[in-house]
């Protein structure tokens, strides 16, 4: 067994080696010689901070107690890394673009650069991590005590360990305030520790399997209780543990630090996606054999949680035990260092800096070095975090409750998981929703799992845990609302997650995000679509370049600030001097500052100088979330389709009209050709007779010639009429309106139709009254009157036939009624009479082409009057209405 001195010296040497490695890596990085410091393998190995002493020693203990259950703690992260394409890749990309420094910063930045959510998450992270840090200190002092042959006090050992870790963390974790918060020294040292861990555990495993036992078959033959490998373990607890360990890789502050913040190249994730699962696979491969060997080869009262040390010691292999000890030492130190860095960044950025900024709100411009303040607050935070862990260890030291603290801590961190997923995938998640979700989930966690884990010694008494507060059974911490679960962890996970997720969803739906929140939501959710990073997405501020430079210089350092501003000036096309204070510059500066002091503080500082950003309407429109876009889009489509429908119905209507018109045209053409054909036929036949008939008598020949003459006159008339219709219908007719004496015009028409009337024996009833002057074209009006009168003569045919002509004058109108006492016109034909070529009753009368009434009506309409058929019987009664002359004059 190695002596106490050997242990102490080995540890000191090992720590010195780590210091040297870290220092060397920092120097190389400073010179820009990254080499394998930035290789995916270093990244993968650094992820092994996941394997703390709790897993290094505890996995074997767990295997001894519950068989294969320990595998879940490694399978969970395997699952997350197999799914790197979905979550981790997006997280890394966002963190790179937004310069995220911690998990609190991620949530703060996403939910509107909110200070409040940063504070809440930081407090929760510290609360959930402190016991975990205490656990590392406990197992370290425990393993030290194991080797100590002189009386040592665990508390003292733990104190020196904590102090040493604080020194290391301060030295390498806060050497500089970087714009991207990457610590090459620490990461390289941790990668080395990862190798030591793996080599140590594998060596112990190989020694157990092939040194003590005779191969794997022999080991499993020694299995003391076959129940250990039964299927009982694959129950709700298995699922819960898988879920918790899968989320822990993202939510635990230290895991977020190494996996996301320290990631220097997105492609490293691709390698880590299989290499990290392979690492944890190797770490768990020998857990079961070591546990079996411990259970069978060691006294029954040996602590399973340190089998990794006691098994080689029991076999007398001191060197291997020392190696195993170093492995455990590595696991503890790497976890504490990274956790301290992550937590101190969060405490400093989200609690100390905002407070300091507030206290110096009006004196920033004149105050001292912000960088100094920042480093100071980081260092103080590191000491504070480790001191908290140490105090926790002293207060609860030695209690067995620490053993389960790993999973309790996992569930505490898992309360951030819904908000992180919401941050990445749900644009509707709001700050209020996230804060409510995290606080409520954390409250359930504390009430149902964390506080009861003290077995009634802290806050809740054993009676309350057993019977609920004030004896209310429904509020029993481990059986909320009467739910019965065998395992308090499963119970607390279900309830806290249910409350957490519901709060996030419901409160987010009920609350309204601010402008900056919407902008950040878009930048986060759409990080891969490329549209998110368009120029003009920044909030516009007015700031002077000098002030911005001053600010950058104080936080980033003179050199970095100068480089950044010169680059921007070059990009703006300026050869020298400071760049213009464009929104691009403020955005860039804010991101660079966010890398050092967190998004909320950076936003606050830039706003302090530049004034609060305002969002223009057009920017807001652009930010408008996808739902709004979809709604707008569908509205537009709806409108389009409505328009199209309208157009289609108009087209249908127009088409029907065209169709009708075409039919009318066809009918008109056939009518015209028919009408022209009849006189043409007689003209032709008489002409043929005249041509061939040499023996025609002169009298007969003259009669034939006169018939030809009449027929061609009729043809001319017909053609004139057709021409008239087309001219009138197109509105091309030259009709003048002049004062016309109505009586004279009627007399003219009656005189013209008198021979016709006399031949038909028609009795005319007409009493010319006082003369009325109308506004009309006299010839045209006479044409209409003659037409209607001759129609009355032709179709009236009463017995004895009579025609009444009446003139009535209302105020502005004059109506001439021409009625006969014939059979009248059937109601269904009353509109038809005005159609072209319509002859009712198929009577064909010589000289009529059926165009008279249509022409007359067109004339009257052109004279601002009308020709209508009065429905009153008994005979047909046409009414010609037109304007009296006075009105036209008055109108003019």
């Amino acid at each position, binding site marked *: 067994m190695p002596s106490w001195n050997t242990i102490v010296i080995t540890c000191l040497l090992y720590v010195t080696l780590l210091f040297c490695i870290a220092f060397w890596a920092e120097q190389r990085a400073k010179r820009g010689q990254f080499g394998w410091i930035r290789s995916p393998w270093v990244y993968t190995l650094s992820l092994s901070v996941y394997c703390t002493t709790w897993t290094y020693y505890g996995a074997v203990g767990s295997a001894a107690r519950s068989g*294969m259950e320990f*595998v879940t703690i490694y*399978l969970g992260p*395997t*699952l*997350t*890394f*197999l*799914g*790197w*394409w*979905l979550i981790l890749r997006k997280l890394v990309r966002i963190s790179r673009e937004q310069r995220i420094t911690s998990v609190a910063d991620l949530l703060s930045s996403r939910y509107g650069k909110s200070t409040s959510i940063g504070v809440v998450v930081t407090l929760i992270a510290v609360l959930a991590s402190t016991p975990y840090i205490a656990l590392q200190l406990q197992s370290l002092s425990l393993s030290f005590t194991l080797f100590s042959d002189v009386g040592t006090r665990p508390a003292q050992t733990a104190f020196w360990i904590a102090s040493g870790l604080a020194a290391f963390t301060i030295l390498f974790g806060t050497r500089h305030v970087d714009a991207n918060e990457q610590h090459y020294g620490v990461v390289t040292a941790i990668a080395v520790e990862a190798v030591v861990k793996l080599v140590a555990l594998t060596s112990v495993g190989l020694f157990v399997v092939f040194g003590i036992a005779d*191969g*794997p*078959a*022999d080991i*499993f*033959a020694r*299995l003391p209780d*076959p129940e250990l*490998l*039964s*299927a009982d373990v*694959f*129950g709700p607890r*298995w*699922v819960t543990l*898988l879920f918790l360990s899968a989320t822990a890789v993202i939510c635990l502050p230290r895991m977020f630090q190494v996996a996301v913040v320290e990631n220097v190249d997105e*492609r490293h994730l*691709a*390698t880590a*996606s*299989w290499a990290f*699962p*392979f690492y944890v*696979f190797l770490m768990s*491969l020998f857990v*079961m054999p070591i546990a079996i060997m411990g259970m069978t080869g060691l006294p029954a009262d040996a602590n399973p949680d340190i089998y990794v040390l006691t098994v080689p010691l029991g076999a007398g292999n001191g060197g291997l035990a020392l190696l195993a000890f170093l492995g455990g030492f590595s696991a503890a130190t790497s976890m504490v260092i990274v956790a301290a860095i992550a937590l101190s960044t969060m405490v400093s950025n989200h609690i100390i800096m905002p407070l300091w900024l507030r206290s110096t709100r009006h004196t920033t411009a004149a105050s001292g070095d912000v960088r100094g303040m920042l480093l100071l607050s980081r260092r103080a935070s590191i000491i504070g975090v480790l001191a908290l862990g140490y105090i926790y260890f002293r207060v609860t030291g030695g209690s067995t409750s620490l053993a389960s603290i790993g999973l309790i801590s996992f569930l505490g961190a898992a309360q951030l998981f819904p908000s992180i997923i919401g941050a990445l995938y749900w644009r509707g998640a709001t700050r209020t929703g996230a804060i409510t979700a995290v606080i409520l989930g954390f409250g359930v966690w504390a009430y149902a799992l964390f506080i009861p884990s003290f077995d009634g010694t802290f806050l809740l008494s054993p009676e309350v845990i057993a019977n609920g507060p004030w004896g209310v059974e429904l509020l029993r911490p481990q059986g909320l609302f009467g739910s019965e679960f065998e395992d308090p962890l499963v119970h607390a996970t279900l309830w806290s997650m249910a409350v957490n997720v519901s709060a996030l969803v419901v409160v987010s739906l009920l609350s309204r995000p601010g402008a900056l929140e919407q902008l950040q939501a878009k930048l986060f959710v759409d990080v*891969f*679509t*490329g549209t998110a990073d368009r120029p003009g997405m920044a909030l516009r501020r007015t700031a002077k370049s000098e002030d911005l430079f001053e600010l950058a210089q104080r936080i980033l350092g003179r050199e970095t600030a100068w480089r950044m501003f010169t680059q921007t000036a070059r990009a703006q096309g300026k050869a020298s001097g400071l760049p213009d204070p464009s929104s691009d510059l403020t955005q860039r500066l804010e991101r660079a500052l966010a890398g050092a002091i967190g998004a909320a503080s950076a936003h606050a500082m830039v706003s302090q100088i530049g004034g609060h950003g305002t969002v223009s309407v057009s920017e807001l429109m652009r930010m408008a979330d996808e739902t709004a876009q979809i709604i707008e889009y569908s509205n537009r489509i709806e409108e389009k389709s409505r328009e199209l429908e309208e157009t289609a119905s108009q087209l249908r209507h127009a088409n029907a009209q065209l169709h009708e018109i075409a039919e009318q045209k066809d009918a008109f053409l056939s009518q015209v050709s028919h009408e022209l054909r009849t006189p043409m036929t007689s003209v032709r036949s008489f002409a043929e007779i005249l041509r061939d008939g040499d023996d025609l008598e002169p009298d007969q020949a003259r009669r034939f010639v006169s018939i030809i003459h009449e027929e061609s006159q009729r043809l001319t008339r017909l053609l004139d009429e057709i021409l008239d219709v087309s001219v009138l219908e197109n509105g091309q007719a030259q009709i003048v309106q002049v004062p016309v004496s109505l009586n004279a015009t009627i007399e003219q028409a009656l005189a013209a139709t008198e021979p016709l009337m006399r031949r038909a024996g028609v009795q005319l009833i007409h009493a010319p009254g006082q003369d009325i002057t109308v506004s009309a074209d006299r010839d045209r009006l006479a044409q209409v009157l003659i037409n209607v009168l001759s129609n009355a003569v032709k179709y009236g045919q009463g017995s004895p036939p009579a025609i009444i002509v009446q003139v009535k004058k209302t105020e502005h109108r004059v109506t001439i009624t021409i009625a006969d006492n014939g059979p009248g016109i059937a109601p269904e034909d009353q509109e038809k009479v005005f159609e072209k070529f319509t002859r009712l009753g198929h009577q064909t009368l010589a000289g009529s082409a059926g165009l008279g009434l249509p022409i007359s009506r067109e004339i009257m309409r052109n004279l601002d009057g009308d020709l209508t058929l009065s429905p009153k019987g008994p005979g047909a009664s046409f009414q010609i209405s037109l304007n009296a002359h006075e009105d036209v004059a008055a109108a003019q």
Partner: protein
Amino acid sequence: MSQPEDIPRARKRRYDGAVILPIFAAMLILPPFVGLFAVPVTVFGIPLIVLWLFGQWLALIAIARRLAHLLSHPDDE
């Protein structure tokens, strides 16, 4: 990132694979599939359930490795 319509079919398949792999893995390591072989049978002296758990784990790692290679070398076929 290019828009989805610009992504060649072969690459699109890899993206799909990257999404399906964790789902497939979760199915394997969750009950009831994970407990399928929790029977008192040994193969070469090793309990079947141990072989099943570690075997599928290793297989998943191998698939992930292949997929990671394909995803980070988009031009290979």
